[in-house]
């Protein structure tokens, strides 16, 4: 993922491009199968397990990891932390592409994707949390598009339109936070309807709050994680203020993540307490729960704190990656691993390789589009025509 980026393009046959190419070819092949032969031909979904990794990973994880957009833009534009300004555009871009990927993934997952607008244009099932998720994701994708568009418009040289959009920044940011609060929490609240299917350690009347707070953690960590990767592969695209603010951002976001993780740890413990599920901690699911709670919440909380205290950027970056992994595990636990825990193992779900292929395919597409955009548009540097802003 480096050669043709750091040096002017000579050959497209870099290892990254070749691997990506193979994934894309397989992905297209499975796509054709999916839409001509039906879900049954490419998935291991069953009547007991109607949601697989396209929901558990693509939707639940995808939306959580795309939370960096609203976290960063609210930090800078609402909470007034202007020194993190250079993190806004990469975070918005990641968020926008993340949500776009989620929507594409949903087209694979639902039985009749051409009917996805039906909840809005045909009959509104407003008692469904999925309706709320659908409405918020649709609106937020639009908000992210508008928030991202100034970069594209600067690239295209459409000055007037760009200036109008810049004026909307505060409004869009507030709207984005409202929508994110709603759908990040609602993704957790989706499971409120199934207390008899989700393991009691993960099922909680507070699950909506858990999802929202952990999404904030995911957003903060993703910004650090993504800036680390970007710095590695796109350093030549970064301007001075980006390079200068980069370490500040890691320290600031690391500190925030440590704090929020501490709060998250506390409310998770309150969750066990509320249901009086202490005795379940000794079971195999309980141990797995503790791995998540201690290994992927308490541990990164401390690691971030130490990293910030000692200004150990390397530790902060590794902790960010670890925390992101923890969020992935949490969402997979709720959506797949601890869901249907009561069923015999023969009825449990494990993804078909073609389901995994589609998820990998979509993530690869996301990376390719991300690369296309940051190598062309003013994401990691200020456009020379607009030096003061961004």
């Amino acid at each position, binding site marked *: 993922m480096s050669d043709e980026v750091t040096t002017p393009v000579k050959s497209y046959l870099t290892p990254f491009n070749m691997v990506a190419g193979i994934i894309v070819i397989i992905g297209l092949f499975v796509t054709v199968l999916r839409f001509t032969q039906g879900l049954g*031909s490419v998935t291991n979904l069953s009547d007991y397990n109607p949601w697989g990794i396209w929901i558990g990973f693509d939707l639940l994880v995808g939306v959580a990891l795309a939370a960096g957009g609203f976290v960063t833009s609210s930090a800078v534009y609402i909470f007034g932390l202007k020194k993190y300004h250079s993190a806004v555009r990469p975070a918005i871009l990641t968020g926008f592409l993340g949500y776009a990927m989620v929507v594409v993934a949903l087209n694979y997952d639902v039985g009749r994707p051409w009917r996805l607008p*039906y909840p809005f244009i045909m009959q509104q099932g407003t008692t469904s949390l*999925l309706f709320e998720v659908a409405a918020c994701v649709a609106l937020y994708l639009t908000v992210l598009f508008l928030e991202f568009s100034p970069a594209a418009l600067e690239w295209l040289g459409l000055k007037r339109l760009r200036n109008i959009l810049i004026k909307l920044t505060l409004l869009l940011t507030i709207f984005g936070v409202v929508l994110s609060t709603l759908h990040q929490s609602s993704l957790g609240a989706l499971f409120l309807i199934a207390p008899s299917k989700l393991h009691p350690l993960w099922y909680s009347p507070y699950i909506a709050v858990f999802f929202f707070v952990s999404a904030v953690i995911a957003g903060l960590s993703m910004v650090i994680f993504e800036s680390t990767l970007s710095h590695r592969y796109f350093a030549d695209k970064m301007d001075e203020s980006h390079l200068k603010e980069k370490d500040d951002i890691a320290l600031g976001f690391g500190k925030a993540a440590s704090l929020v993780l501490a709060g998250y740890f506390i409310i998770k413990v309150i969750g066990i307490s509320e249901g009086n599920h202490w005795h379940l901690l000794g079971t195999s699911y309980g141990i797995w729960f503790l791995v998540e709670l201690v290994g992927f919440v308490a541990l990164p909380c401390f690691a971030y704190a130490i990293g910030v205290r000692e200004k150990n950027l390397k530790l902060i970056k590794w902790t960010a990656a670890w925390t992101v992994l923890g969020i992935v595990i949490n969402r997979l636990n709720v959506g797949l691993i601890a869901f249907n825990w009561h069923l015999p193992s023969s009825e449990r779900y494990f993804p078909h390789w073609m389901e995994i292929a589609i998820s990998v395919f979509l993530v690869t597409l996301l990376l390719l589009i991300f690369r296309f955009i940051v190598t062309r548009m003013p994401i990691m540097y200020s456009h020379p025509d607009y030096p003061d802003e961004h």
Partner: protein
Amino acid sequence: MSISRRKFLGWLGAAGLGTTVGPKTARAASNKNFSGYPQSNGVLFDSTRCIGCRKCEEGCNKVNELPEPDKSFSDLSVLETRRRTTAKAYTVVNRYDDTGSGKGPLYRKIQCNHCLEPACASVCFVTAFKKTATGAVTYDESVCVGCRYCMIACPFEIPAYEYDNAFSPKVMKCTLCFPRISKGQLPGCVEACPTEALTYGKREDLLRIGRERIRTFPDRYVDHIYGENEMGGTSWLYLSEVPFKEIGMREDLGETPAPKLTSGALSAVPMIVGLWPVLLGGIYAINKRKEKIEKQEKEQAVAAAVAAAEAEAKAKMKEAMEFQEKQKEKAIEKAVSKALEEAAKAAEEAASDTPSEDADTKSSEEDS
């Protein structure tokens, strides 16, 4: 029990079922309870009468025009395995040999229970599911997107999906033979049952019959009608001679109607929409103000510092000037006194030669 339709719809709305028929509300806290459509129908399944003949499966298959099964309905070997409803079978019968109570084999029929407040209907974001006044929970495939949230939500694990249908996959589940019962006919399974294990009728009557059987044969039944209160009550009701757990029915579902499980989360939505902009806008305004005040204070501080510096410089200048002045005066005094001294000396010397002349010349030189 006579209730006006309006009142009734209001209850439905309060229960979070509103979009199916009435007002669109979902209340977290409400003292309203929905105890089912009055005069709605249901089926009572008495497992002590079931012989596992699968006639109900066959009847269901026929009236619903479902595909031929892999093994014929007369083949009872399928009872060896634990089955569930599928896209090709709205109802199945399972056999339970090793019940904890040592009775058996026992049989249990599975199909949609037609909840009074169905989870599937409350979670459907296109309201494809409806609890009708007949008691049947119906499904409208013409709006179904295929998200399968109904399957996640159903506590009885009933809805199935046509995963192999590429272009028009549907959720498949028992409709309580809605088209038939609307015409006054019996549901297919009930009609086919040779042992009267199934009784179709008004739910309230069925409850009465069930209680009566338990009262008459207390040794034959556990004292519980499954479905009377489970998940807020279902239109299908069950009698059994062993605890229901032993014939594969979950006893841990509770009595909370499904819509109540999510109504709290739903009720938070408008509050967030209303208050978040105020909160966020407030934080923004506070920060803006802080910045403004900081800027003002900075400007004031700078101005004050400049003024102080100027004053100090002036004072210093003045001091320096005064010092200079003093120095000058001192020098003059010194010079004068020196001159006087010299004059005195000269006068002394002149006293010997010509004293007065010399002293005058010297002093006039000093003054100029």
